[in-house]
């Protein structure tokens, strides 16, 4: 693993008790690229996401490192890693309006006017202008997914982790949200890891985990 290269560099061996989920998995995702991670349930996909973003259950034992644009993330808590995460549920905060959900993500130290401008810009980009005061529960599935993506981006992440973010959407909506998400990610130049079970969602760059298939020394560079 070349830690200094731009993008997301990961090397990991993850085990729970005596069971090794991932053995010496290694890959690099350059800026603007999306690596699709597939595999059976229990193969370690969500554990890998947890490891990269710094939220892995302490019950797991891990050996490895995560470098993001030359920065080692291992000692950092989740909030200082600058890695955005999207799950299959939108996880919009139910007690906040759409605009408040977005404003929550804007980094601190930014003036109120600028925060408002960024929120409005995000709403425009998601084609949700005027939706700011709305209750998140009143949005459609596709609208919620777009708000969740824009919220993640407003935090100015340097990488994104997508844990089956389209799986709860119907096929037509899924295609539209997927296109919007991928285009936005590429425009921002973010290295992105996408976990999915759906072939339709997968990008050309793929890594398949089947528990044992990722053997020692398996390495992948997405170019």
């Amino acid at each position: 693993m070349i830690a200094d290269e731009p993008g997301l560099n990961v090397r990991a061996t993850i085990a729970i008790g005596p069971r090794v989920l991932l053995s010496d998995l290694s890959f690099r995702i350059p800026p603007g690229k999306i690596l699709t991670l597939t595999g059976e349930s229990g193969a370690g996909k969500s554990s890998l996401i947890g490891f990269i973003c710094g939220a892995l259950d302490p019950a797991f034992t891990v050996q490895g490192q995560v470098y993001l644009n030359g920065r080692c993330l291992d000692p950092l808590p989740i909030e200082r890693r600058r890695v955005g995460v999207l799950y299959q549920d939108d996880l919009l905060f139910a007690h906040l309006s759409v605009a408040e959900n977005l404003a929550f993500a804007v980094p601190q130290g930014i003036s109120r006017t600028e925060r408002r401008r960024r929120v409005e810009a995000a709403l425009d980009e998601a084609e949700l202008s005027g939706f700011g005061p709305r209750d998140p529960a009143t949005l459609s599935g596709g609208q919620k997914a777009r708000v969740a993506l824009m919220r993640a981006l407003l935090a100015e992440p340097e990488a994104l982790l997508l844990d089956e973010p389209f799986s709860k959407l119907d096929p037509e909506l899924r295609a539209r949200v997927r296109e919007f998400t991928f285009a936005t990610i590429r425009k921002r130049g973010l290295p992105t890891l996408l976990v999915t079970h759906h072939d339709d969602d997968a990008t050309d760059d793929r890594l398949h985990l089947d528990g044992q298939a990722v053997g020692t020394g398996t390495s992948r560079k997405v170019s």
Partner: protein
Amino acid sequence: MRDRLFGAAPTLTLTIFLAPVAIGLIGTLAPAFGFHPALGLTTLSLEPWRQVLDDPALPAALKLSLGVGFGSTIAAVLIAFGLCAGLHHRRGLSRVRALLAPALAFPHAAFAIGLAFLLSPSGWIARAVSPGLTGWTQPPDLLIVNDPHGLALLIALTLKEALFLILMILAALGQVEAEPSLRAARSLGYGPVRAWLIVLAPRVYAQVRLPIYAVLAASLAVVDMALILGPSAPPPLAPLILSWATSFETTDQTKAAAGAVLQLLVVAAAIGLWRSAEILISRLTRTWLTSGHRSGTVDAAVRVIGLIGTALALGLSAASALGLLVWSLARSWSWPFALPTGWSLEAWRVAWPGLLSLATDTVVVALASALIALVLVIACLEAEDARGRPPGRGVTWLLYAPLLLPQIGFLFGIQVLWSALRLDGGLSAVTWTHLLFVLPYVFLALSDPFRALDPRLARTSRSLGASRLATLLQIKLPLLVRPVLTALAIGFAVSVSLYLPTIFAGAGRVETLATEAVALASGGDRRQSGVVAFTQTALPFIVLGLALALPALMARNRQGLRA
């Protein structure tokens, strides 16, 4: 740094929480064996035990406590399990659930006073059926309340504790995948009640074992309700010990300490006996569980016990609260009229100056102890989240310690601690002592909803740059506002109902509505008693009402927050 602060929360909480209990136990044990330097007793002796064992009231008091303790706990368990088994598949259970919180907020002493108003020979029930059905032209000469066998006390404890156990069972059902298990059993041809009893009852029982032991311990050592509804010659064991502890005879202090240790031993033995019975019943019913019977008369009996018991508990609670209010407003109420013949605010006017001071102290102590408990519990739950695993069984037992130990067993010794710290007789000592009993209930009320909150919400918040503390304050707590406020209200209600802890920690200088209500109950003025007991009842109701109304108000524009 902040994460480390959360990490220290469980140790800090257990120290604040258990140190007084441990010191209290030592402070009770030492004088029980004759060591009480303040009284000039510096050598160990068995004299206090000889005094206790020689007391002529002891055998009857012990027998009474065991009968009331075991009888009410068995009945409460039967009612609670009967109701949940009988109503699980029906809509009635959600109605009962909605009524539980207000019924549980009813302070024990006020409930006992209200029940005495209902059950006594000149009470509401006798008035309602006299002289038409009974032919009584004057109150009959019957010893219904304060009866020598403690039946009135047994009934009151049964009804009060059954409601608590129903709440505990309903919470436990959420942890045992109840619906899929029931569906599976019913698809195999089992009737709804039988399916519940076979598939869920054993698992639910394991979840509510500690609350059941707490109920047994409380029933064996109850003081406030025993003073109001129980017999006085002799009283049950705990009130007998209290009479020694509050005696002016200095030798009675060591005797009371020995009595408190005896009470501890009685409760420990009773819990051991109960556990043995659990194992025996579990073995005996194993054949029944796999006998293949899909339904039977047992099912109907279980349902009837549950329904009647719960209806009585809820109905008598409501009637008792109403009775307190009516008596407080009665100017004249002669036999056998069902309602006062004259109404007046005179009792409230007379009581007002003292009532205001009592209510203020009660609210200050209750709010302070509930808020401190809430902060500690939230910090502990957040530490648990950071650690990634719940506390072990041992910590749970420690948390329950003040509920499993008879109050008098360690409150006697806590007095010594507060006295050494020069805190005795002050609001801070009373608040700290209340915290020991408030905290377990706040933990019980908040832990499940806190643990059930989708962990990805916090993870998302933190991935957006928010710290653990900011995530807790800005995301988790607003999302959990309903259970947080409900836990606060439950803590408040527990504190308002505490009698014995106030007596001991207050050293007679701090009076609350609970101590005043019990003191007035033995007097003859039902109007004054009604005023104080109704106020004691109203305070937790108001706080609970606010705890339910505020989240609803906050969620009026947020569909996702509505339960």
